[in-house]
């Protein structure tokens, strides 16, 4: 061995470095494992909700059963397998299909959640005789699993097979529109004032410290504030996208301000100096030279703040957005619910069929959040300029 390069204890130092490397790698693997476990659990539990079972049963339609729709199915034979929601909807179906009148035919009907769960191989409350019957029908091709259009079209329902996620998706979209309209301009303007116009004195320092602290306040407090100010004082309708959006805007504001300020700070001062030396006003410099450079950073911050607000439940509970909403709301003043609140409601329901809906809802929410983050990354990549 060439002793020329010998350093005492080098081997030991290297071993230490190696050990440290393995520890950090283990930490990484642990977090990846948690993530994978969570995701696969949700997928396993939730994928069932994306299909729904339909059964083909004889339906008798005449003057009488058109009035009392539950009589259109032979209760003893088929009553347990047809959804109450389908029977309720029969009147409407008849209006759309008048030629069904006075027929006795086998028709595809929405299956009861117990049958649906049985078909999906999950826990159900079917009796052995009923199971026999279902198995026979399966052999006869009278049972089908179709894409669950109801989940993506309808709102909540007390009948599990008839409950959908769409009302809450729309609720979230409308709430987020309000949040965005309020929080983004307000936050960006505040950041521009603090970063570009305000003199650095005690007063602005106190404001900045407080804004940073606001970002760390438990979100439920914003809900209390929203309840006290928006609902009780200003009389904004409870449970509406308007009040929810305003409350979430309060919560997103500090995050947007902080990230916008960081984006403005990252614009080199030499750009501003150049502008001043040309006799430009502050507004011209900020509008045409600073803001365009800060834009990608601001956009990213805003999107991340909105994504955060989208997953928020606690403050919305305070303003009544955790409600039973069967219909998709049509205005910003109607009662509505949002995705995380809907997930929370379903997770507390006793029927087993809601379990897969809970997981499916989480998957949809996660999908939307991940795509939002992807958009943020894309925008940052696309608009970041070098100088």
């Amino acid at each position, binding site marked *: 061995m060439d002793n020329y390069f010998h350093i005492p204890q080098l081997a030991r130092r290297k071993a230490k470095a190696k050990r440290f490397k393995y520890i950090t790698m283990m930490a990484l693997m642990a977090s990846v494992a948690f993530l994978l476990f969570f995701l696969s659990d949700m997928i396993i539990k939730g994928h069932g909700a994306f299909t729904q079972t339909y059964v083909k049963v004889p339906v008798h339609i005449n003057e009488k059963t058109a009035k009392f729709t539950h009589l259109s199915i032979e209760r003893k034979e088929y009553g347990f397998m047809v959804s109450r929601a389908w029977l309720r909807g029969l009147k409407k179906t008849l209006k759309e299909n008048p030629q069904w009148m006075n027929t006795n035919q086998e028709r595809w009907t929405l299956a009861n959640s117990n049958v649906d769960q049985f078909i999906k191989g999950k826990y159900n409350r079917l009796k052995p005789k009923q199971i026999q019957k279902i198995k026979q029908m399966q052999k006869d091709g009278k049972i089908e699993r179709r894409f669950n259009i109801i989940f993506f079209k309808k709102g909540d329902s007390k009948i599990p097979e008839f409950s959908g996620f769409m009302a809450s998706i729309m609720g979230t979209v409308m709430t987020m529109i309000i949040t965005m309209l309020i929080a983004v301009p307000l936050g960006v303007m505040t950041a521009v004032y603090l970063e570009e116009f305000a*003199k*650095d004195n005690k007063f602005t320092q106190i404001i900045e410290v407080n804004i940073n602290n606001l970002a760390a306040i438990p979100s439920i407090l914003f809900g209390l504030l929203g309840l006290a100010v928006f609902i009780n004082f200003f009389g904004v309708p409870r449970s509406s996208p308007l009040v929810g959006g305003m409350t979430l805007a309060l919560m997103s504001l500090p995050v947007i301000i902080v990230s916008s300020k960081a984006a403005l700070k990252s614009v*080199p001062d*030499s*750009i501003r*100096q*150049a*502008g*001043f*030396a*040309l*006799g*430009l*006003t502050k507004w*011209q410099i900020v509008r*045409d*030279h600073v803001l365009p*450079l800060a834009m990608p950073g601001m956009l990213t911050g805003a999107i991340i703040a909105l994504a955060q607000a989208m997953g928020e439940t606690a403050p919305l509970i305070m303003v009544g957005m955790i409600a039973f909403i069967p219909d998709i709301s049509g205005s910003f003043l109607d009662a509505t619910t949002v995705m995380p609140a809907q997930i929370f409601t379903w997770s507390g329901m006793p029927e087993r069929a809601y379990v897969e809906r809970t997981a499916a809802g989480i998957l949809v929410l996660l999908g939307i959040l991940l795509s939002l983050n992807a958009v943020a990354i894309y925008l940052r990549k696309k608009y970041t*300029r*070098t*100088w």
Partner: protein
Amino acid sequence: MNKMTIKVKTDKLKLWYGDKQALNGVSLDIYENKITAFIGPSGCGKSTYLRCLNRMNDLIDNVTIKGKVTLDGHDIYANGVDEVAVRKKVGMVFQQPNPFPKSIYDNIAYAPLMHDMVKKGKECDALVERALRDAGLWEEVKDKLSESGTALSGGQQQRLCIARTIAIEPDVILMDEPTSALDPISTQNIENLMTKLKEKYTIIVVTHNMQQAARIADMTAFFHLGNLIEYNETEKIFVNPKEEKTEQYITGKFG
């Protein structure tokens, strides 16, 4: 020298950053259509003094300025004088080239458009060409006016910044070490440009390069510790300085 008109005049100019005094009463006359060079060791207040002449120090918090600065006999710090209007008349070029991250065309056209000096279109195109020709950059960039100004070489960027400054037709151009970030050839280009530009403008330049001052400046001022030590025709300063400090500095004994 004949017919020397005073363009800029400062009278007992004092400046404090907070409670630290950086200028101890500088009185100086700067002549029209001449190049005036400021030399002196680092931290002696050359940049500070220069920034007083276009009120760039107003941008720094806690700065106190006493004394008088006049441009063509008008006090630039008088009540009611807008600093933005002063900077339109007194342009500035910085040590680091700082073009806007916009096209070459927009770099030059932006400020004149904002000052309503020209209208968009032909008139503006003509102004851009004139400014680039005056800055000796036209031939190099005439085919790529829409490319980014930041994609040019350092020396080209600095000439772009000079073109941008002369596009607003100031009376005085301040330059704070305009060539210290450039290679010798770019430096020479800029020096030639300055000698040409002094026919139209009054140029004040801060430099650490003694040869540069000797080559291009008509007048030279030597600063030390916030004081103006000596101010005279460049030749006299370099050949026959009156003050001992000046002689020590230009012979490289300190600084």
